[in-house]
């Protein structure tokens, strides 16, 4: 605010507190939704998910890159594939979501039924210790709204909480990379400076506010839910990483962060070679 010459005021919090509550996950609702979501994933996005056989039969922390702003179609494609392979009741999968998602009117309720919980360290540790798996996108909105020319780049924005989470809960990290989500709309720039200058980082905990081109909004600052272009979505699960095995009981977090990011960057770049034309796949 000060940067724009506006008086400094204490900004109100616009988001409702939605504590992580695993009991809100509704297996019956998920089972009911799966066929129609698969129809969308299969026909509209021609989704391909590979590597699920690499997932060990134990609680794991899935760490992914996601694209497509608020719609993030690659995230729902992966969750569908997981639920199909491991069944809805097999080993529940909880996704850590932004408060903006879990606390949103109407949509928030449905995402929570699908197993999305508000991101929080203690709650996530407990979910893993209870025998569930967790899906996290460390880059958050900065990742989901990165510029289109960075679509094949791992963007975690230096956030290392996921490493501490896996280490504390004693679970392996299973990296998941995805392409195509960023072809469902177009992000034209890096909007981190704009978000900061407008105070969005404090008001909404949104770190980026880029200019996007989407249907039906056209050009718009930020990433409201939109109707995605029918881009081909590819998801690849990579080999699990055991942090304790590789970095010991007291890891150098920077080193571990660089390693996991590097593994995922290699995986994402390889997956991107399968794209012949953006959107068409």
């Amino acid at each position, binding site marked *: 605010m000060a940067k724009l010459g506006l008086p400094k005021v204490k900004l109100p919090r616009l988001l409702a507190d939605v504590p992580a509550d695993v009991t809100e996950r509704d297996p019956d609702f998920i089972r009911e939704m799966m066929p129609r979501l698969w129809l969308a994933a299969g026909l509209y996005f021609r989704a391909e998910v590979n590597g699920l056989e690499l997932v060990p039969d134990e609680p794991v922390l899935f760490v992914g890159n996601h694209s497509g702003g608020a719609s993030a179609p690659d995230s729902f494609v992966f969750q569908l594939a997981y639920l199909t392979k491991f069944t809805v009741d097999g080993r529940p999968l909880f996704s850590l979501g932004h408060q903006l998602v879990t606390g949103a009117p109407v949509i928030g309720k449905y995402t929570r039924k699908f197993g999305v919980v508000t991101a929080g360290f203690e709650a996530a540790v407990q979910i893993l210790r209870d025998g569930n798996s967790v899906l996290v996108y460390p880059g958050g909105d900065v990742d989901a709204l990165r510029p289109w020319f960075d679509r*094949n780049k791992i963007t975690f924005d230096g956030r290392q909480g996921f490493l501490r989470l896996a280490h504390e809960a004693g679970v392996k990290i299973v990296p998941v990379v995805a392409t195509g989500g960023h072809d469902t709309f177009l992000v034209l720039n890096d909007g981190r400076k704009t978000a900061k200058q407008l105070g969005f980082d404090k008001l909404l905990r949104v770190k980026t506010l880029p200019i996007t081109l989407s249907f039906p909004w056209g050009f718009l600052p930020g990433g409201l839910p939109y109707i995605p272009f029918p881009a081909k979505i590819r998801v690849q699960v990579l080999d699990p990483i055991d942090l304790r095995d590789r970095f010991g009981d007291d890891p150098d977090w920077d080193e571990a962060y660089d*390693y996991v990011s*590097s*593994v995922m*960057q*290699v995986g994402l*770049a*390889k997956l*991107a*070679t*399968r*794209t*012949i*034309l*953006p959107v068409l796949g």
Partner: protein
Amino acid sequence: MSASARVTRTINRPVAEVAEVATDPEQLFAHFVGFARFVHVDDSDDDSLWDVFLGVGSYEVGSRVMLRRTAPNKLEWTSVRGARNSMRLVVEPYIDDPTKSRVVVALRFELQGGLLARLASGIARGIVERHVLAGLESLRHQLEYGD
């Protein structure tokens, strides 16, 4: 008409260490898993012949190339049959940091025709750049982490 693709990647290892791997065709091509074929055909003096084919969807595009290490940090190829193309890989020192290096790959290719060739070259450039970048990322990861 001709078109070119240029990809650059920084690697956290000194030039000599990177150049040793990056200019050795056997070691380098092992990282380009997206390429459909890398087959060593023959050797003659300082040159070696390779078949280099890129997998594009359900078909393969490429050529037989004459490959030469022109300097300890440079690798070049020129096509001798098939699709006309040339490639130049250079490992450069990273500015102000001798522990890092920069790998630059420039690939030039020719397509016959007018508008369609222009369109095809645009598509081909994207495909080539993604494949080369994936190969360089794999090379970087191996040099930095030994995986």
